[in-house]
């Protein structure tokens, strides 16, 4: 049993997702079942394998650092945003 109530609380905090109190027990049970299952990787000998993975030879390319703006995209996003004002997103107060 890797995941208990305390660890679930930590994971909820890290991921900004909350599980309903009446579903906690079930969620813990299911997560443990999945974590228990994926632990079968311990049966494999992976000592010779690399810890990073990419299917792309030579890795991803670097781009020139050229800023570019498409106003149309910005306008569309702001227009449909939950709340915006003067080309800013409006959110609840951050500092109490």
């Amino acid at each position: 049993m890797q995941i208990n109530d305390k660890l679930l609380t930590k994971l909820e905090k890290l991921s900004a997702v909350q599980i309903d109190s009446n579903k906690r027990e079930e969620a813990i049970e299911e997560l443990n079942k999945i974590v228990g299952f994926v632990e079968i990787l311990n049966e494999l000998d992976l000592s010779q394998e690399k810890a990073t993975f990419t299917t792309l030879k030579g890795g991803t390319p670097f781009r020139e650092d050229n800023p570019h703006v498409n106003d149309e995209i910005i306008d569309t996003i702001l227009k449909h945003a939950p709340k915006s004002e003067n080309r800013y997103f409006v959110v609840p107060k951050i500092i109490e």
Partner: protein
Amino acid sequence: MITLKEAMKLHKSDIAHLRDDLKKEIEKKKEIGAYVEQLTNKNISEYMDGIPIAIKDNIQVNGWEVTSGSSILQGYIAPYNATVINNLLHSGFAPFGRTNMDEFAMGSSTENSFYGVTKNPHDYSRVPGGSSGGSAAAVAAGIAIAALGSDTGGSIRQPASFCGCVGMKPTYGKVSRYGLGAYSSSLDQIGPITQNVEDAAILYDVIAGHDFHDSTSANIAHKKVSDFLSPDRKMTIAVIENYLQEANDDVREKMLDGIKALESAGHKIIYKNFINTKYDIATYYIIATAEASANLSRYDGVRYGNRAQSGNLKDMYLNSRSYGFGEEVKRRILLGTFVLSSGYYDAYYIKAQKARHLIKHQYEEIFKEADLIFAPVAPTPAFEFGSKKDPLEMYLSDAYTISLNLAGLPGISIPLGKNIKGLPIGGQLIAKAYGEQELFDGALSLERELKGEIG
């Protein structure tokens, strides 16, 4: 339904008629729920004129609501076209209708959509597969000529198999992911779901190619495959023997028919084994959830979609995400957060990355002797709604499709026939990275041989 190849010969006015007829047919077959519009009683989404192609609800089409089947993206309007959509438009095709999907492509049955379920056109009590279940059901039901889906762990090939269509997942990097709602960025690829192999090759050619907007896009000039299809070429095809033994009787029977067809088409069959699929599944659910937990952090109620009302910012984040995401999505975010968190990272995430090399090596070993691999798509035909309540059991239904995503290889699901209940069963061919020509050649040869046998 007219094929994609036939539709390409139509005059402009005929295409307009085709679109009108399609709309009527979509309205008539509302019960299937393949399109989001069928489930929400809205008019079919359109963008420009052209040969209509159904689009999975996680691919951006300028001005459309594109919601990845989620509550958290209600109200979001795509501000630009995905590269695949621009590619469609350049070739005379046009996005037409949003197909239903598991929320954020997380699922194997299309039961996890905010809009409700999509039914399998062959049996309404069964799932169409997932996560591109809407795309496959639309093609199978004759309410789409062809569709685009996305495949992270089998999400194109498995629904194609369940619905009796052709579904193809390109080599990682062959098709731009720019404008695709990200689930697991190192695994996701967009691909075609069609009525036959040739249509899949045509649509693949349209969407493939380098794109500077996607830094993981392979910088290789695209060589068209559909112009050079040669089903008569003879190849060595490796059958994965242990998969054949594990699959259920119906699937094994159809796979044996497939092997026979490949043999009578003149291909050489050899038998190989793969490590137990449990290791593939374990590796996949660590890597995919880890990447998902990062990718889905962008949905926080600030810039787009649904915001939960709260007095302070922290609660706004928490409430928007907790109300906006469905159960499976939350489960995968928590799991991904766990495998990446301090103290567990090495034991889970790093181990899975290493296992990914092992899986890729296995393919490389087989491809030293074989041109293609032939394997089942899913362990069973389409299952009934609600029959896989246990998430782990649902994950196990992806057994044969996910190793290919982990290795970045191309694969295609081809209908092999139906079981006694009339449910379609598919088999998949797998090729080397960038081996799409071999893949389609082999697929076309199998399709022709099977059609010849049936007819």
